[in-house]
């Protein structure tokens, strides 16, 4: 029976399958992508932690003593220890060069540093017994060209490092990749990796151990180990779990994504329900006849549930296939090379959730209708559908819609996130309930607007008004789908705007000179002397434990910001904060860290300095700070204070903020030191691109909802035209020409599409207003933006689909003989 029905009307089940497939694909692709990003983040975190369960960092400048290391190694539950040994030296290529870079020599043990394996971009690791081989990190290799090399250092080149016996020559045998090796534990990114034998001989003087990595025995956690470390070493060291505080990718956007995906599923369920309702209406008499022939309610119910079950299964299968393909494409776009992607199917949980969505869409949208159809008495089913359905919407729908809209608009005045979310939901609901009530009036108004098609449009409007319930279903679903798409696009634009706004606040001037390795301050002075360059400000990046948490720091010149602007303070007085940064142990923290760790203005945070632990006061909170490289932002310190408190760690600079004159002369001068001049506009564009990647998923939701809207239009138009065949036949019998009949069908399609689109755009805009405020968080302040291009594109896509979907059946209907059309039922 099912096969016969489907063979007779193949488009309807196919459209329903497509709707479910779209929903399932969306959820699966979203899940696979998020799983991929999570794994990527896990992998980065694991790489940063290496084999270390717990990092024990010295709080005193001298580092950990041999006795302290011995006590740490002797702690119960410790399986292995790996101390990080390092010292600062001067590195240069040409022995006669006056410029030398401060490099950190780090001792390699077992192919890594502090249990973090060193990954090489080229070459090999130095042999452990070698006395003249080293490996350098990528940034250092580039920066060293400023010290007499003709270009970046390559494998086989020589480098001179200050040793106990003077500048000795070492052969570079490997170049480390950025972020590998000791990046997670090292206190510097300008590393030169030496062998244990070299450490014991030429570099032994002054080698310090700022950190030791501990690997716990199986079953023992970092927290238990940390307790033992604190008890054994006391204030001389702090223990940091390197696996803690992993940032969830797209953390800000996840709730929004969940909301939009839920809406897209509801839209899909609505569109699917529309399709099922129309399909049941078409087969109303068949169902009546089945009941008349003796089929019980249960038999009809089983038949219809079987049908939606097959549709759900087919839609889910297609959706899983599509979702996997989409995820593969997205992953190819998102995931960096060399990092593990998600499993091709996204994992059992993702698959189950996607299947649940497919079944859920059917359960929400179709099952109630099927149960109702199966329960219909045989005689009622045999009666004409028109006589059985109410023609006018009940008056309470208008009241309910008005009430919901009023609540939604009133919620805009609130600052509560939950009230704003409820308001957004109420506005969406008011759209679903209210738009259909306004449709007939709107259609009549449109009919009066155009003289040239007035008759056709009037007829079409009357048709739509007469088929009240079906028009309600279509316009409601269509407008909701468009609203979700417009709201998603608006939020994408808002997120993009919020994403690049921080750029302007970080760089007071028009450019920044970036260095792959830490440069001596002498270089900054030379660059500032380049013709046309205004004031410059050095920025030095480093990692440190603040109040027991490993965070990124940026030491800045507060004076430059005082004189040239930049840095938007959300808490604390800007002038006071910048002055304090320059004169006292004080910190300015970014909003994201303040929110994550509960840091507030005036808090005293313990900071490990060269003289031991000392307190630093939080003197301000800024909306954004420099990226720390771990997905979060940096804590700001004044350079002078940082150098005083932290010694060589804060010496030199990594970036040079240029307050004016960032032109080609400066670019050329910077290139001479292996550095690069980047204009602020370029930074802004990069930020835009990065945010665009992150919010790409939102766009995917928007596209899928528009697709669902298009399917809704096609479904309804096909059934409308089929069921309007008799009416059209009657109209033609009394003198309506074929051409005008086609025009009526076209006008009906356009009216449906136009009304749904206009209402959807208006509704989506209204919904986006509270939602923009709902997604705002610490350091993420999107502002409402109307997505003109997206709205226009969605509108055009839906109108074009309506015209195309109406064209073929209208030709067929008007090509049918009048007698056949009149007899059609």
């Amino acid at each position, binding site marked *: 029976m099912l096969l*016969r029905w489907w063979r007779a009307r193949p488009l309807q089940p196919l459209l329903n399958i497509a709707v479910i497939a779209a929903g399932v694909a969306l959820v699966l692709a979203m899940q696979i992508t998020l799983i991929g990003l999570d794994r990527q983040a896990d992998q980065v975190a694991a790489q940063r932690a290496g084999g270390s369960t717990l990092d024990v960092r010295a709080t005193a400048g001298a580092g950990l003593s041999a006795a302290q290391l011995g006590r740490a190694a002797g702690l119960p539950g410790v399986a292995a220890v790996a101390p990080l040994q390092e010292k600062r030296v001067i590195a240069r290529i040409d022995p006669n060069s006056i410029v030398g870079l401060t490099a950190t020599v780090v001792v390699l043990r077992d192919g890594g540093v502090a249990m973090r394996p060193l990954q090489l971009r080229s070459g090999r690791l130095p042999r452990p017994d070698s006395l003249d081989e080293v490996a350098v990190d990528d940034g250092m290799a580039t920066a060293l060209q400023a010290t007499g090399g003709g270009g970046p250092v390559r494998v086989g080149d020589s480098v001179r490092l200050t040793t106990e016996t003077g500048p000795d020559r070492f052969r570079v045998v490997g170049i480390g990749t950025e972020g590998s090796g000791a990046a997670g534990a090292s206190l510097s990114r300008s590393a030169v990796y030496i062998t244990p034998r070299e450490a014991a001989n030429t570099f032994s003087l002054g080698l310090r151990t700022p950190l030791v990595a501990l690997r716990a025995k199986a079953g023992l956690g970092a927290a238990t180990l940390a307790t033992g470390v604190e008890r054994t070493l006391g204030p001389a060291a702090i223990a940091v779990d390197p696996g803690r505080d992993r940032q969830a990718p797209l953390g800000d956007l996840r709730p929004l994504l969940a909301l939009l995906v839920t809406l897209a599923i509801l839209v899909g369920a609505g569109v699917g329900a529309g399709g099922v309702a129309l399909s049941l209406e078409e087969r109303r008499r068949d169902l*009546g006849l089945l009941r*008349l022939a003796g089929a019980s309610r249960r038999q009809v119910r089983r038949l219809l549930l079987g049908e939606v079950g097959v549709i759900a299964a087919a839609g889910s299968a297609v959706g899983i296939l599509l979702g996997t393909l989409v995820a593969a494409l997205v992953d190819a776009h998102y995931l960096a090379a060399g990092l593990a992607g998600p499993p091709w199917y996204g994992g059992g949980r993702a698959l189950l959730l996607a299947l649940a969505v497919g079944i859920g869409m059917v359960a929400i949208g179709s099952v109630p209708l099927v149960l109702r159809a199966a329960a219909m008495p045989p*005689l009622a089913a045999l009666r004409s559908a028109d006589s059985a359905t109410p023609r006018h919407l009940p008056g309470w729908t208008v009241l309910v819609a008005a009430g919901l809209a009023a609540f939604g608009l009133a919620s805009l005045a609130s600052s509560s996130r939950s009230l704003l979310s409820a308001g957004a939901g109420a506005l969406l609901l008011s759209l679903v309930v209210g738009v259909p009530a306004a449709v007939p009036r709107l259609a009549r108004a449109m009919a009066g607007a155009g003289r040239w098609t007035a008759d056709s449009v009037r007829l079409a409007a009357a048709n739509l008004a007469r088929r009240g319930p079906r028009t309600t279903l279509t316009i409601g679903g269509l407008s909701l789908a468009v609203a979700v798409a417009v709201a998603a696009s608006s939020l994408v634009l808002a997120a993009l705007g919020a994403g690049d706004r921080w750029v302007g606040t970080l760089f007071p001037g028009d450019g920044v000179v970036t260095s792959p390795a830490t440069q001596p301050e002498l270089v900054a002075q030379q660059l500032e002397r380049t013709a046309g360059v205004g004031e410059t400000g050095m920025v030095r990046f480093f990692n440190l434990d603040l109040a027991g948490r490993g965070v990124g720091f940026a030491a800045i010149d507060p004076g430059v910001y005082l004189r040239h602007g930049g840095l938007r303070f959300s808490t604390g007085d800007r002038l006071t904060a910048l002055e304090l940064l320059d004169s006292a142990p004080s910190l300015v923290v970014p909003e994201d860290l303040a929110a994550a760790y509960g840091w507030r203005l005036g808090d005293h945070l313990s900071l490990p300095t060269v003289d031991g632990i000392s307190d630093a006061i939080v003197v301000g909170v800024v909306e954004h700070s420099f990226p720390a490289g771990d997905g979060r932002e940096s804590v700001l310190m004044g350079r002078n204070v940082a150098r005083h408190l932290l010694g060589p760690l804060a010496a030199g600079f990594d970036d040079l903020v240029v307050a004016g004159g960032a032109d080609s002369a400066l670019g050329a001068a910077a290139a001479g030191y292996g550095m690069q001049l980047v204009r602020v506009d370029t930074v802004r564009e990069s930020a835009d691109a990065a945010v665009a990647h992150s919010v790409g998923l939102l766009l995917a939701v928007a596209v899928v909802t528009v697709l669902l809207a298009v399917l809704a239009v096609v479904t309804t138009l096909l059934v409308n035209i089929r069921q309007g065949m008799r009416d059209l036949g009657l109209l033609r019998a009394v003198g309506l020409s074929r051409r005008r009949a086609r025009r009526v069908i076209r006008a009906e399609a356009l009216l449906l599409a136009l009304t749904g689109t206009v209402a959807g755009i208006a509704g989506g805009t209204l919904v986006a207003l509270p939602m923009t405020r709902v997604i705002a968080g610490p350091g993420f302040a999107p502002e409402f933006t109307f997505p003109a291009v997206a709205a226009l594109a969605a509108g055009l896509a839906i109108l074009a689909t309506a015209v195309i979907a109406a064209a073929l059946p209208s030709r067929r209907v008007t090509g049918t003989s009048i007698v056949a059309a009149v007899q059609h039922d």
Partner: protein
Amino acid sequence: MTDRTASTPLVTVSDLHKTFHISRPPREVLRGVSLTVGRGEFVAVMGPSGCGKSTLLHAIGGLEPPDRGTVAVDGQDLHSLDDERLSAFRRDRIGFVFQRFNLISSLTAAENIALPLRLRGRASRPGRTAVMERVSALMDSLSLHRLQGHGPEETSGGEQQRVAIARALAANPVLILADEPTGNLDWSTGHEVMWLISKLCRSEGRSTVLVTHDARIAAYADRVLVMKDGTLVEEVVLDHRADTEGRPPVAGPLIARLADLEL
């Protein structure tokens, strides 16, 4: 009234009341209708449009629950059954023929005929071969064999109605209910259809209740019940001894009696 009716009635309708509340004021279409239909008896119900004859037929078939009163078919009170049992009873014991919309358009003629057999529960469902044989026999007896694989849209009105009769007979029901079965057909085709119904019912001892407003069609029945404003107002027993095989029955006396009633 025939002697068969008097012996063991197949259908017993007692004090049937039905009011529709769709319009205002509510419309009372059946006002205490009582009747019996004997085994193998052919009863026609006549009356003007809106007198309640179709509603009476629907109530006898268990399609329209009455507000008051009972309908018993073969000793079973239909409206006391739940949906499952009522559906099974309708499927196995009652055959319906309507004026239009009788066939499922996506099924072939043979499949439409086989529907009541295929809808039976697993325990009582005949095998595929048995179904095919039954369908084939019915199609032969109704001269439909050439339509086996054709859909309803490919057949004429008369052929569609013959397929509907075959479907009504497929489960070998004890009662056939026909609502204006010739309403959409020309006189010649209508006569052919009525001749088939009366022949098949009489030869196999089935009872038939036919609703019509055409006296020439009602003349095929053994007994004609006349309805007016929801009540039975007259009963006319017809004598078929003068009828000629294969020709329409004599309708003159019935038409004259109806004229007397001024319906």
